[in-house]
C-alpha cells in the first residue's frame, strides 16, 4: 500500500488539529481547576506597580516596516532560487555546470548590488539613518563649527 502525494499532506492537517485540541484541552482544564477572583487592580495592564496610563497601541517607528519590506524581497528571492538549487547538481552532472552557474551568479549578483546600495546608503542601520533627519532638522551648530574650523585650517 502506498500513499499518494495528497495523502502525504494528512499528517500536517492532523498535527494542526492536535495543536488546536491541545490548546482547547489546556484551556478546559484551566477553566475547571483554576480559581476566578478578578479584582479591578488585577485586570489592569502591568506597569511595574504604577497605575497603567493610556493605551500601548501607539504609532511605531517606520524602521520595522522597512525590515518587513526587505524581508519580503529576500523571501521572494529565495522562493525563486529553491527550484533552481534543486536542479543544480543534476545540471552539473549533465555537463551544463558552467551555464547554470553563470545564470545563478547573475541572479545573485543583481541582488547583491541592491544590498550593497542599501548598505552604503545606511538603510541597513537600525539607528543611524533615522537620526540623520533629526540632526539635519537641528541648527547643526556643532557640525558647522567643525567645518568652519577645517575650512579655515
Amino acid at each position: 500500500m502506498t500513499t499518494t502525494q495528497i495523502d502525504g499532506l494528512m499528517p500536517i492537517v492532523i498535527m494542526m488539529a492536535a495543536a488546536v485540541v491541545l490548546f482547547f484541552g489546556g484551556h478546559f482544564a484551566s477553566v475547571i481547576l483554576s480559581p476566578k477572583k478578578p479584582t479591578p487592580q488585577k485586570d489592569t495592564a502591568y506597569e511595574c506597580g504604577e497605575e497603567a496610563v493610556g493605551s500601548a497601541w501607539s504609532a511605531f517607528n517606520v524602521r520595522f516596516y522597512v525590515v518587513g519590506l526587505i524581508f519580503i524581497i529576500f523571501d521572494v528571492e529565495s522562493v525563486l532560487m529553491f527550484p533552481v538549487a534543486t536542479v543544480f547538481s543534476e545540471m552539473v552532472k549533465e555537463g551544463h555546470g558552467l551555464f547554470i552557474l553563470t545564470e545563478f551568479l547573475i541572479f545573485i549578483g543583481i541582488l547583491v548590488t541592491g544590498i550593497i546600495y542599501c548598505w552604503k546608503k545606511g538603510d541597513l542601520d537600525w539607528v543611524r539613518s533615522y537620526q540623520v533627519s533629526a540632526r539635519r532638522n537641528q541648527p547643526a551648530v556643532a557640525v558647522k563649527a567643525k567645518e568652519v574650523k577645517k575650512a579655515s585650517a
Partner: protein
Amino acid sequence: MFLNTLFVMSALLTVVSAVLVLTTKNIMHSCVFLLGSLIGIAGLYATLGADFVAATQVMVYVGGVVILMLFAVMLTGGKDFVSKAQNLMGLAPTMGNAWTYGVSALVGLVFLFTNIQLLTRLGTMSKLKNDGAFESTVNKIGHLLVKDHILSFEISSVLLLGALVGAAIIARPRKQ
C-alpha cells in the same frame, strides 16, 4: 477521498475568512482573518497537486505579507482603526468621479465575461480524472526556470532589485 476533505476544509477556511475580513470592524482582526484566507488558498493549491506553489504561498504570504500588513497598521497605531459603523451606500458618491466609475464598470464587465467563460466549461471539467496521485512539481519548475524561462528568471531579479531600492528610498527620511 482525503483530497475532497482537504478541498472542502481549505475552501471553507478561505471563504469564511474572506467574509470575516470584510465584515470585521477591527483592522487588526481583519489582518488575522486574511491570514486564514491565505492559508486556505495554500490548501487549495495543494489539492491541485502544486506542492511547491502551496509552500510558496505559505512562505511569502503567511510569513511575509501578513506580518508586513500588521507592521503597516502599527505605523499608525492599531487602536484607532476600529472603524465607525460605515454605510457603503452612503459613502459611494464621494468615492470617485465619472472616470473612476467608468473604469470600474469596465473591469466589472471583463470580470463578468471571464466568469461566464469559466462557468460554461464546468460541465466538461468534471470529467478530469483526479485521484490525488500527483507528481512533484519542484524539478519541473526548476528545469523550466533554467532552460525555457531563463530570461524571466533573470529579469525577476532586476524587478526585486527595483523593489529593494524603492523600499529603501521610500522609507528614507527626507532631506530638508
